[in-house]
Each structure stands twice: as structure tokens, then as C-alpha cells.
């Protein structure tokens, strides 16, 4: 039972909300954990046991870390083994998927990384190990979060699980965020992904220049809307049930530099990598060489988060090169370049990077690049492109409008200038969006 199914939306969610509303705040965590386990088991069946085992192992490891305060070697060993086991499990499944097509259980990456971060925090003494298994299970395995994050820091989230406050105001806010996320996923993400699939079906030697550009743009937009939609749904449901989860996407296509892009695209993953890799290795205090090494490592790890394959390593290297270029070569010149030109440059660089997502191998990605830059002698335009542009002009316009962040700017303006009208209008719009999205789910 997926988050974006009618059964969840119109049966399970109302029942869960009703149950939680009548439960005392302290007992709500139990109900939400039970809901998460039920939803997970309905999709992944027996693999729910794997996720439960990871959560239980991390819980016990953290408790052990708390108990052996005076034995530093044992603490180090427990932290290294348990955090290492989390990462190894994630990598193992990623590799097996590449080699043998093994199915990766939903949310394994989110659970393993959140667990590893939690254990590191416990080890360094940033947080005390959690006593309540239910609170811990809720932070680790809150079902809506398992699709695409956001990754959360234990210290910021767990206090909320002890007393999950539900109110009509929060339900209203959560409902709005949830419906917006659902619409992003179902209407924009899935719709544009279908265009991408159609463009991707054409072999590169039959593709025109604009064909590949459009394919890459559709892929980047669909990934952005699918991931941010799922994250918004998680945030919305979190608000409804009394949890505040961080934002994970903030108009990434408005970026005017690569650094800016990473601070807007999959924000929590990038912050997580910065905290546990970049900062942990001492890059901010280190010299130039150390900085370069850490940027390389960080970018490659961020790339591998999206899939353990060669293309993602190259994706990381590509962005490392761009970040280093910005840091060492363009730092002074960048200020003099008008923001519009910086935005154009950044957008092109980001779009080109998605060729690595589109290609099933490095060779295929290079072939796409040759077509994109007119090195293969391909035509500039094709009937297929014209047909798809004609057929989907409104969807693409809406997607570009939403990706540009204009909607958020306009909403912010209205919220500040006429809050009451904004509140009424946004409620009405949410209702309309819910009806339209439901229509697209049929």
C-alpha cells in the first residue's frame, strides 16, 4: 500500500488520523509505528523483518555504547562495527542490484544511513542513546520517510516522538504540504517521467540534438518532482501526526552556482554527507589538498547515494570538478557575472550531469553527450520532439513554472501581504488540487 495509492489516501490515512486523534499523545508513537510496519509489510512483505532487524541492532548497539562509557576501545569497536554494518548492508544491496538485479528493499538506504548517523552521534556524545524502542523505531522507520527521505538527525527528531502534538492547525498545514507533494509526484513527476521514457526509447543514433536535450531536461524535472513530492508527502504526514521533518528540496533549478544547487537539491542527504564525511574528516580546517580530496570524496558519495554504479561515480567526479572550479578559479570572477548568466551556466551544467542518470552505461552517456553537442551529425529537430512538445506543452510549462520557484515566491508574497486571504485561498486550492490529483490517480 503505497503512499500515493487511493487506498492509503482515502482509507488508511483517515482511519489512522482518527485513531491517533483519540489516543493520548504518548501513545501516538505506537500507533504510527504500527501504521508504518503495516504499510511497509504490505509492499515489501517479509523484508519488513530486515528493516526491523536493522532498527533493533542499531538500538541495541546504541544502548551498548551508552553502557560502556568508560571503555573507549569497546565503544570504538561497537560504533565501528555497527555503523559499518549499516553502511555495508546498504552497499551490499546496491552492488547485488547492479550485478544480479537484486531488489533493494524500500527505504533501506534511508534506514541504514540514519542509523549510522545516529550511532556516530552517540559515539561522539552528541546525543544520549534512546531508551524507548518505539521512539527509536519511529524516527528510523517512519514509513512516509522511507521513500526518499528526508534524512533526519536523531537529536532533532526524537524529542518530538515523546509527545506527538496533533492539532487542527497542524493537520491543515500538513494536509496542504501532503497534497502538494502528492500532486508533484502524481501529476508532474509521473507525467514528465512518461515523456522521458518515450524519448529514452529512441536509440541515440536516431535521436536529434533537441531530442536528447529534452530527454535530459525531462529526466531532471521528473527526478526532482518525484523525490521532492515524496519528501513533501512525508513532511505533510509528519505534521499531521505531530512530527516536524526538514525540507529536502528547495527549488534546485533556481541555483546560480553548483554549491547553491547542492544546498537546494536533496538538502538533507548533502548535509548528512557534509556532517559525517566532510566535517568529520576535518576538511574545513585542513589545507588545499585535504579540501580537494574531501570534496572529491563527498561528491562521489553523494553520487553513489543515487545508485552504486560507474555512472554515479563519474557524476560525483563531474560535480567535484565543477565545485573545485567554482572554489578556486571562479570565486572572484563569479561576483562580476550577472546572476542571469550564472543561472544559465549552472542550469546547463546541471542538465548535462543528468546524462549520466539517463545512460545505462558510461558509453551510452558519452554517446548522448555527443548528440547533445552536435558532434554526431544528428539533426537538430525531430518530429518526435515536436509531437511531444505539442502534446505536453501545458504539463511542461507548469513543471518549469514550479521548478523555477515562481509559485513559492508568489505564495510567500500573498502570505505576507494578505494572510487571511492567503489562508482561505490556499485551503480552496488544496481542495481543488486533491480532487485533480485523485483524478490523475485513477
Amino acid at each position, binding site marked *: 500500500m503505497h503512499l500515493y495509492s487511493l*487506498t492509503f489516501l482515502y482509507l488508511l490515512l483517515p482511519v489512522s488520523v482518527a485513531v491517533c486523534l483519540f489516543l493520548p499523545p504518548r501513545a501516538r508513537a505506537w500507533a504510527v509505528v504500527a501504521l508504518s510496519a503495516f504499510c511497509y509489510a504490505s509492499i515489501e512483505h517479509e523484508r519488513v523483518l530486515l528493516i526491523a532487524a536493522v532498527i533493533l541492532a542499531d538500538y541495541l548497539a546504541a544502548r551498548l555504547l551508552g553502557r560502556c562509557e568508560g571503555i573507549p576501545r569497546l565503544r570504538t569497536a561497537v560504533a565501528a562495527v555497527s555503523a559499518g554494518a549499516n553502511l555495508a548492508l546498504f552497499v551490499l544491496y546496491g552492488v547485488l542490484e547492479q550485478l544480479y538485479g537484486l531488489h533493494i528493499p524500500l527505504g533501506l538506504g534511508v534506514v541504514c544511513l540514519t542509523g549510522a548517523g545516529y550511532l556516530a552521534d552517540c559515539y561522539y556524545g552528541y546525543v544520549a542513546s534512546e531508551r524507548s524502542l518505539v521512539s527509536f523505531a519511529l524516527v528510523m522507520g517512519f514509513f512516509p520517510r522511507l521513500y526518499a527521505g528526508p534524512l533526519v538527525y536523531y537529536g532533532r527528531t526524537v524529542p518530538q516522538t515523546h509527545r506527538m502534538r496533533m492539532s487542527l492547525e497542524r493537520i491543515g498545514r500538513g494536509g496542504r504540504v501532503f497534497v502538494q507533494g502528492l500532486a508533484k509526484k502524481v501529476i508532474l513527476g509521473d507525467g514528465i517521467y512518461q515523456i522521458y521514457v518515450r524519448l529514452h526509447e529512441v536509440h541515440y543514433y536516431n535521436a536529434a540534438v533537441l531530442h536528447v536535450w529534452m530527454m535530459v531536461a525531462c529526466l531532471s524535472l521528473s527526478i526532482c518532482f518525484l523525490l521532492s513530492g515524496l519528501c513533501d508527502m512525508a513532511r505533510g504526514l509528519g505534521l499531521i501526526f505531530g512530527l516536524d521533518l526538514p525540507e529536502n528540496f528547495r527549488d534546485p533549478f533556481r541555483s546560480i552556482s553548483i554549491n547553491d544547487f547542492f544546498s537546494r537539491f536533496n538538502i538533507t542527504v548533502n548535509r548528512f554527507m557534509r556532517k559525517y564525511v566532510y566535517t568529520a574528516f576535518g576538511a574545513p580546517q585542513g589545507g588545499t589538498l585535504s579540501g580537494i580530496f574531501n570534496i572529491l570524496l563527498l561528491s562521489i558519495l553523494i553520487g553513489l547515494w543515487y545508485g552504486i554504479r560507474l555512472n554515479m561515480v563519474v557524476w560525483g567526479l563531474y560535480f567535484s570538478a565543477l565545485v573545485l572550479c567554482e572554489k578556486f578559479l571562479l570565486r572572484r570572477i563569479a561576483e562580476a557575472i550577472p546572476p542571469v548568466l550564472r543561472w544559465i551556466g549552472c542550469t546547463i551544467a546541471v542538465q548535462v550531469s543528468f546524462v549520466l542518470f539517463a545512460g545505462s552505461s558510461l558509453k551510452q552517456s558519452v554517446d548522448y553527450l555527443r548528440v547533445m553537442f552536435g558532434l554526431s551529425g544528428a539533426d537538430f529537430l525531430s518530429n518526435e520532439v515536436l509531437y511531444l512538445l505539442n502534446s505536453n506543452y501545458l504539463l511542461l510549462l507548469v513543471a518549469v513554472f514550479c521548478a523555477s520557484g515562481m509559485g513559492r515566491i508568489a505564495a510567500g508574497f500573498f502570505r505576507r501581504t494578505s494572510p487571511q486571504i492567503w489562508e482561505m485561498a490556499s*485551503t480552496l486550492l*488544496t481542495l481543488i488540487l486533491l*480532487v485533480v490529483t485523485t483524478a490523475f490517480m485513477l
Partner: protein
Amino acid sequence: MKLRRYSGITFLTALFLVPVLLLQSGDGSALLDALGSQDQPFQQMESAMKERLPGADFLRRLQISLKYAGGNKQQNGVFISEDMLMLDVQLKSQAIVNANITRMLDFVEQFQRNSYVMLIPTACAVQQSKVPYDTVAPLYNQKQQLLDDVYRRVSGYLTPIDVYPTLRNHQEEYIYYRTDNTTTGLGGYYIYAVAAQKLGLKPRGIHEFSVEHLDYNYYGDLYARSPYREIPPDRISAYSMSKYWRYYTVTHYENDGRSRRYYTLYPQFREVLGDVKDVLLGGVSPIVTIDVGNAAESTRQLLIFGDRSMQSYLPFLLVHYPKVTFVDTASISPSLLEQVDVSRYNQILFAYMADSFIDSDQLSILSWLPQRQEPA
């Protein structure tokens, strides 16, 4: 603050409204039944939810209309033109076409009967100008890539019946249903006119047939897939030879051994039982035999391996034959097919809509036909 509470109340009302309406309409038990099934219960529940969601039909139409307004005039594999729906026919696998051709050739070799092949192009091939964005739409060229290719490959073994030019000449007429992927009665007449000549018959003029319009409000299978509300409904017409009175015995044989018999080509009570198109020859069954009493001009018997498109042209062909048997190769079971004695028939016609022929292996079932038998 108050307004913010109202937004919460509105959201909760919207959420709770659906289960309440489901319970009120009594559809809740159907959902529970789906959940209780042993095979993928949650998927079945989701399917049941899609069927029974309050206002599902309205929402489906809303989706289609919104997509259409956004330029998307090809939805669920259907082109939505200004006044009609057309199936987007695309070749999925050349191997399927090859297999169908090979089976026809094997059949001719095995049974040595006069055999004919007729592939009926779909609306998007004949009425190309009605396809949205027709100058750039990625259409499968049915004429060149399928019809001409198949006819070339079977020439010398089967006689091709190319109805494309005739249908193309009459493309402005009502020859395809607007909401169904098949030819109308009028389209069936033009197909018959070409087929009759190739089968060695003298086609009758359209004025020799009387027409009765059975329904003016028919919505077919394409509308079920893309219910765009601006598309007008179809007219279902029944053509009958008016010059001489004929007695028809139409017998339908089902795979489970059941059979039903009508003494008319158009049993109108079938409309009450379901689809008005089932009035035409009593619908489509794995085997349909039609015996014509009084006035057949030859003793030849015709066996047709085909699909539901026969409902459009067969009423006209019956003028020339005392007995015609139709076999629906997509639905017939091997055991029922074993009862068909090919040697009783003088002419064999393979007749399919283009999409049926390229979408599925229609003819491998023919290997179950009993070996050549001497006429009794």
C-alpha cells in the same frame, strides 16, 4: 488562527468523506472482499478502490479533459481527434507478424484450400488527417509496413484482399466508429465490395440492402479507455438484404460446450443482455456458424478465421453463401477447434483488423485443427 483550523477541518472532511460515502453506498464490503483475496490483496483492493471511488467516472473524464486541454491528445493509447477516437497502432514485435504469416502459409500447405488474407487497416491509417498533430505524429505505417509486406510475403499461396485503397477513397464517410476500434456497417459494406470480387463473387450494390439503425447513443471500447466527453456517440446500424427473403440460422458455440441459436442475424433482445453491438450477428463467440436458407446463389462454403471486425462485413457476404463459419482465433480453445472440419469449406478467409494481427499470435492455435479429412 481560526482560519488555520478551518483548513484542518476542510482537509479532514475531504479525507473522511470518501470512506463515509463508500460505506453508505455499500461498496465497503467489496473492498473488504478484495482485501480478503489470497492473490495480492492490496493490489486488488486498490483496483477495487479505483472502480468504486465515489465520482470515479467524473474524475476519469476530468483527467482526460485536463490532459486534452494541456495538448495531450493521445491518452491510454488512443488518439483523441475533434470528433472521434482512434487507436494508436504500433508494432510491438515483428516476430508476432512473422509467426502469423508463417502459420497461414503452413495452413495452406497442410489443407490445400483456396485461401485469402484480408487485413483491415484501422482508422488512424485510413483517416490520417484526423490524427492530432498528424504531420509530426509518430504513426506506424500500416499500409507499407504491414499490409503491403504481408501481401507480398504470402503471394502465390494466399490471395490478398487489399481493402485499404477503397476505405481510403471513402474516408470522409462514416466507415469507422467514433468510439470503437472497428468498422461500421457502411465500412463493412466497402470491405465486402472488395472482398467479394476477390472471392469470385459479384458484389451487390448498397441500395440492395435495407438499413435499420439500432442505437444512436453507443459508446465503444475506445471511449472506455479515453472517455473524452466531447466525442459524440456512435450509431449502430444493421444491414439486411432486402430483395429476397432469407432464413438465417445463427449458432454460437462457446468453449465450455454451450451453444445458442438465433433465427435472425440481429437478435435485438441481446441489447437488453448487454452491449448493443451484440445484436450484430448475436455477438462474437469462439465459433459462429450461419446457415442461410432460400436464395444462396452458390453452394460454396466459407470458413473465416478472424476477429470481431467480421460483424461489419459478414452480413453482406452472407448473400452469396449457403453456409459461413466464423472462428475467433483469439478466444477459441483447442478442443473446440478440433471440431472444425476444414475440408467441408471451399474457401478460407483470414480476416483481421491490423492491430489484432500485429498485437498477438492469432494463428498458432490452428495447429490444433484436425488433419485433412475427406468430405463425408
